[in-house]
């Protein structure tokens, strides 16, 4: 099944390419402007990439929620879902098969974005790379599980489109993915922690700008794990192999 997912990706690589290419462009364009924003926030001399690289990574990883949702819904639209089930694929295998390629995509996204940041945008991790990797890995898991929860709880593809894409933008903005939370309007500050992106960015800031190690980001990691658990709960509660899903047509 994973082979077929890769085959489908090969026939239509554009969305995946956009999810990696687009944040690269935005990172490059925004890094200079972000330098002064960071300075105003107390990080004098830090490169703008310290905000834009993790920020864009969070925002564009969040689009993987939609990628997972669509990967499941399109199978209903093509009416191949019952055929996969008739082939004897268990729920676990079906879901594993559906998550594998998005997982690969999010991993590639992080490697490319952070790699590009280090090579071309003066990104430096003053603390622990391992902490950065933990945050990235946990955030990636969170978005994949959130995608499953969306696919399980929503019943039409229009809902998936609206909730996942708009949700990704909103949570990304709210959580400080575009600009740091402390430069967002006053009234936004108290609700920013409702976004998982806030906690990922909090951890990244600690590890990248403040010299933090793994021990220093356990707090944000715990919150991200809690978000993941909530989404997993929704997915387990609502997921039914034979649930009808309305797509196009």
């Amino acid at each position: 099944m994973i082979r077929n997912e890769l085959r489908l990706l090969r026939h239509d690589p554009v969305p995946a390419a956009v999810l990696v290419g687009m944040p690269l462009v935005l990172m490059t364009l925004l890094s200079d402007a972000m330098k002064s924003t960071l300075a105003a926030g107390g990080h004098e001399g830090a490169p703008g990439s310290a905000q834009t690289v993790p920020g864009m990574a969070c925002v564009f990883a969040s689009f993987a929620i939609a990628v997972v949702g669509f990967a499941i819904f399109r199978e209903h639209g093509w009416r191949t879902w019952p055929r996969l089930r008739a082939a004897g694929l268990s729920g676990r295998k079906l879901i594993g098969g559906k998550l594998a390629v998005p997982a690969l995509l999010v991993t590639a996204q992080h490697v490319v974005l952070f790699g590009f940041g280090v090579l071309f945008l003066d990104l430096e991790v003053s603390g622990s790379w391992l902490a950065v990797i933990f945050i990235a890995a946990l955030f990636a898991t969170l978005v994949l599980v959130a995608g499953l929860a969306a696919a399980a709880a929503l019943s039409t593809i229009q809902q998936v489109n609206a909730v996942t894409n708009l949700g990704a933008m909103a949570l990304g903005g709210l959580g400080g993915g575009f600009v740091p939370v402390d430069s967002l309007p006053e009234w936004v500050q108290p609700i920013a922690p409702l976004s998982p992106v806030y906690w990922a960015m909090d951890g990244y800031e600690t590890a990248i700008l403040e010299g933090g190690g793994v021990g220093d980001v356990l707090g944000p990691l715990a919150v991200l794990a809690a978000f993941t658990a909530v989404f997993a709960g929704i997915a387990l509660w609502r997921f039914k192999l034979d649930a009808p899903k309305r797509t196009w047509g």
Partner: protein
Amino acid sequence: MSLALTGVVKRYGERVALDGVDFSVPAGAVVALLGPNGAGKSTLVSIAAGLLAPDSGSVSVRGRPGLAPQEIGIYPSLTVRENLWAFAELYGVSRRRAERWLEPFVLTELADRPAGRLSGGEQRRLHTAIAVVHRPKLVLLDEPTAGADTQTRSAILDAVRGLAGDGAAVVYTTHYLPEIEELGADVALLERGRIIASGTIEELVARHAESLVEITYTDGRTERRPGTSLHGLGDDVVRAEVIRPSLESAYLALTGRRSAE
């Protein structure tokens, strides 16, 4: 038996879709599952395929059935060949073995075309080929010839014959009685979730068929009379048809409807 359902009941909420169905198919047999829309044919097929669990009763199936659902299910962006591969991989069948089905389903020349760009009949053939890619011992085809062109219909009928000849049990839902006669299939007639008749075509005709005259009046009413006499028809008759004892008249006697209705 390649498929055996015993006392199967299936409800969708209040609605009873299958109401105590006993149905079995031996190896090498082709059974045409007939019945008006909503009779429960697709539900029965889904249960046999393991997609639905019955509310009560038991289901026994030999091997992993091959299923062609009523609605076409293919990957439109993949080529015909890749569609076969995709399902072959799930069943652990080699690509080469999967591609052997191109020819019987008249897909050889379309092998490298994206499935989404095939005509309806071509898609239906691919859809059916996918069901048998792993040479199942039980083949479930839900309305495989609905809306099909002549070439598609004859390719599918030939494939059904071939599969049964190789020892597979084939269950086949349809509305087209001539097809069943052509295949010489056994028949099971499902109505409102119950099997109301089953047997060979000859048995059904002997037991249930009688000659009828179907009369259509100017006001659109139709009436059916036993016998073959066309005498004494009034001016208000626009059409009168004698239906000889046949699968069609047996179907009519059992369901009160023509098969195409």
